[in-house]
């Protein structure tokens, strides 16, 4: 079992964790028999000591079901090069690992699940009421600040924007609107760009809209209020959501760093429910959450936050990892750009504070088909902009760098892409081919 399962854990899967080529290269150099001692394995894990010095060694292990790597070193980057080195060493010398009792330091991976008592909508409303006074103060300040900016004009505001934005963001943080404060801080990034005027005008307009929505909160439904308060940064309502038990396929991962805080967004697709879920992990460490690698498939129960369009979720229970090749019966419903964008617009009509919307782009027919037609999804460089198109076009996000890989794929066949759409551009997180989901970070870098 171990061998078979490990064979599936190809080096490409390591790349799906968002590891860079440098980490993998340095890890490969550790796959040297002289450096490993105390090798052992059982049916679903292997372990070894990595020799550092005469009396010093590290405890390194690799576990399947779920896939995870661990090491006793204090490297801030996880998985570290030692645990990756163990992976490569096993690939090269599988016979060196004999069945044995696991050492006392070895622990099975325990996946953190959400453990909170469920609340009713009434109980959540009560919690909100307690906070509304504080939010109101912050949002009134925000409205005054916005009006001041419009009065003085953006040309004058730009000169002192940095300090002013920081002060307003601090006021919002004090008013328990951390998410809004974060949005506000992102405006400094807009101001640093060459084309700042229109995006800034647009951003200020949306902030105003949010402050007005809060004023009219009494007329909003529970779900609409949940969306609004979620945009402010509140999470007290999430315990009142619905639970879906399903086989979940990891469609993609996106790690974003906001100063020291890292936000990992993990997108899942439910096989039976056809529901997309978004798990958000925030951490100050560079946790790779190796069990959530793109393409992984597992049985689990998710708790969805209340929303007009439920998307964000928490893991309630993790039952088992499943071999996606052998056991998956269906695939997500990929759509043309027009259709996918319509679903975005419909959601935006309900939740104007929507930040990232999942798009499954491709022909609506079977994604395992190889043929390419006029209406196939294609990727092309037009006037120095990378676009994906199928009759209509979407801009690729400037942060996405592997456009030549998409171009190569699209020359061969129609593209099937999953990614995030922010209203302006599309960020591909994975491509889908021959029944496999390939993380876009697994595309080899152009050195």
């Amino acid at each position: 079992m171990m061998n078979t399962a490990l064979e599936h854990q190809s080096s490409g899967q390591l790349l799906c964790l968002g590891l860079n080529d440098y980490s993998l290269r340095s890890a490969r150099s550790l796959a040297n028999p002289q450096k490993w001692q105390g090798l052992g394995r059982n049916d679903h894990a292997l372990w070894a000591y990595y020799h550092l010095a005469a009396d010093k060694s590290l405890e390194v292990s690799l576990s399947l079901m779920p896939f995870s790597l661990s090491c006793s070193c204090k490297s801030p980057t996880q998985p570290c090069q030692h645990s990756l080195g163990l992976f490569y060493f096993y690939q090269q010398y599988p016979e060196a690992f004999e069945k044995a009792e696991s050492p006392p330091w070895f622990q099975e991976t325990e996946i953190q699940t959400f453990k909170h008592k469920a609340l009713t909508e009434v109980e959540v409303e009560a919690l909100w009421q307690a906070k509304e006074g504080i939010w109101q103060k912050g949002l009134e300040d925000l409205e005054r600040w916005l009006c001041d900016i419009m009065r003085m004009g953006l040309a004058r505001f730009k000169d002192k924007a940095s300090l002013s934005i920081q002060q307003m963001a601090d006021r919002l943080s004090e008013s328990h609107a951390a998410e809004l404060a974060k949005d506000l801080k992102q405006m400094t990034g807009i101001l640093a760009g060459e084309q700042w005027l229109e995006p800034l005008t647009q951003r200020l307009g949306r902030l105003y809209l949010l402050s007005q929505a809060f004023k009219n909160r009494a007329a909003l439904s529970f779900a609409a209020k949940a969306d609004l308060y979620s945009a402010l940064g509140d999470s007290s309502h999430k315990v009142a959501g619905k639970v879906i038990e399903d086989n979940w396929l990891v469609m993609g991962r996106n790690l974003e760093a906001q100063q020291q805080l890292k936000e990992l967004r993990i997108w899942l697709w439910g096989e039976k429910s056809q529901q997309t879920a978004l798990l958000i992990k925030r951490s100050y460490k560079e946790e790779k959450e190796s069990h959530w690698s793109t393409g992984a498939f597992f049985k689990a129960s998710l708790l969805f936050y209340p929303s007009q369009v439920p998307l964000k979720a928490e893991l309630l229970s993790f039952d088992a990892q499943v071999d996606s090749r052998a056991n998956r019966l269906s695939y997500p419903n990929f759509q043309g750009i027009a259709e996918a964008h319509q679903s975005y617009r419909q959601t935006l009509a309900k939740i104007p504070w929507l930040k990232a919307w999942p798009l499954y782009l491709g022909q609506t027919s079977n994604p395992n088909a190889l043929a390419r037609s006029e209406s196939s999804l294609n990727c092309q460089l037009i006037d120095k902009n990378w676009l994906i198109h199928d009759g209509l076009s979407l801009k690729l996000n400037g942060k996405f760098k592997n456009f030549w890989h998409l171009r190569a794929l699209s020359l061969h066949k129609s593209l099937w892409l999953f990614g995030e759409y922010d209203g302006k551009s599309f960020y591909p997180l994975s491509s889908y081919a021959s029944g496999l989901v390939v993380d876009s970070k697994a595309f080899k870098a152009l050195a």
Partner: protein
Amino acid sequence: MLRVWSSIAKLLRLWPRAGESMSYLSELSSLTLLGTEHLEGLKLDISQFSPSLREALANFQEENPEKRLLAMSAILGFYQDLAALESPFPFKTSPLESTQARYCTPEMGELIGIMLDGYQHELLPEALRLLIATGQSLPPLLLPPLLQKAYRLSDLRPLVKELLEPMGGQLAAENAYWGYGSSHLKTYPALKSLWDKETSSAKRQLLAQLRQQHSPYALSLLESTWDNENHSSRTWYLRPLEINLSLDDEPFLERALDDRHLSIRQKAAELLSMLQESRLSQRMGKALREMLNSDGDRLYLELELNPTLNRDGIILKAGDETRAKATAIEDIFAASPLNTLDGYAPSPSAFLSLVHESSDGEAMLKGLNKAVLRQKDELWARAMIDSLGLTVLTTKLVNLLSSEDIEIRLALYLDAPLGKEHPGMRMLQSWTKPWTEVMVGGVVGMLEHSQALAQENPDFNLRQALKQAIKLAPIHSLSPFHNIFSQAEQAGLVWQSLAYSLGSMLKFREKIYLALNAPLSKGEVT
């Protein structure tokens, strides 16, 4: 507020009208830029807006001018984002040449990916050759990193080009740096515009690419800016001319001989001396004949350093008189056609015997060595190695020999102890062409019989020779090395480390053949 939002929601559900202006937000931004303090009656003319947009704006009854601007910013912002998608894609999708690509196995794709990362990258050319020989293609996702790798390593380019057609060829044609991978040659004006804006490194890559595709373009581009380049760039750009060098390049190279910088004249002279019919080769041959005499036992040189030789890259003033003479002799021999020497002795070996007796023999030998390398003359290479043995000078000539020749020589060294500076290992470490089974057998025999593993650490020659064997020998002949490497793991530290690194390379090579999953006839990949 709710009215405003319901209008926006309605807008979002509606498709913005085809051809409708997308400059609304831009117009509004000119107002937000100024601020209400400075607007004084200025307002946005909404009469041109679509009815749905006008409705959304009219629904907003905000009295406060700042709030009115903010609300309009939100509405027009949403509207613009949606309208950005509304325009149909105006470009035609490039047609895909019909191809029934036969992709390599996923395992092979993964191994290629690992080599592209840098691990065991020396085996990449063999893996590509195997794919070509078995008619397999690479998965599309590996094409960009492969094209980029070959952009940096020009030796890989012919293989990559052969492997890519037709799909990769189209991809290569679309990237300015990957043009070498495409049969589609850009027009000269397009190339000229690229040439004029590129860095010197990229220009050199472009030259190398064009030398393989269409030499006249390379020469024309080079000539177009030659006079404006600095001298180090000019020297740098001459190197790619080695690719497909022909007499067509002679006029340009003769012009380069008039350059005032010696390094440029020397490089141009080196290139011209590779063409035995070139005017420079003839001039050098004539100069050599005029200065070289023989009485049948010895060679005599009457060196008259004509200043005109300086134009042909000959250094006339190098330190003291003796050194200047030696340098000039070396340069003249290096640039002369080897057949110039036919009249002095019946064979290369006989000529070399005369050289040994000459007082300027060392300089002559150095020059001869360069001439043999430039003219790739196997007969002379054999004679030089026989005459001088395998020295630092002559090891470069080993690759000019035939594999049969190497096998015969190896047999002569079989009994020599496998200690330091073993002549057989010195020869084999320089042999960079495919190994034969006889060569592998010779090395394995020497290792097994000499008890080298028990004696001492392997010297540089032995280590390099073993590496060449693992890299270049037929895969089916390498099985004895598994045993040798497992014994080496019990030997000294240097042996252990060697066994690990070469053992990894051997295993990786074996994995490549296993992953190929296609029949391969013996000798198909060389």
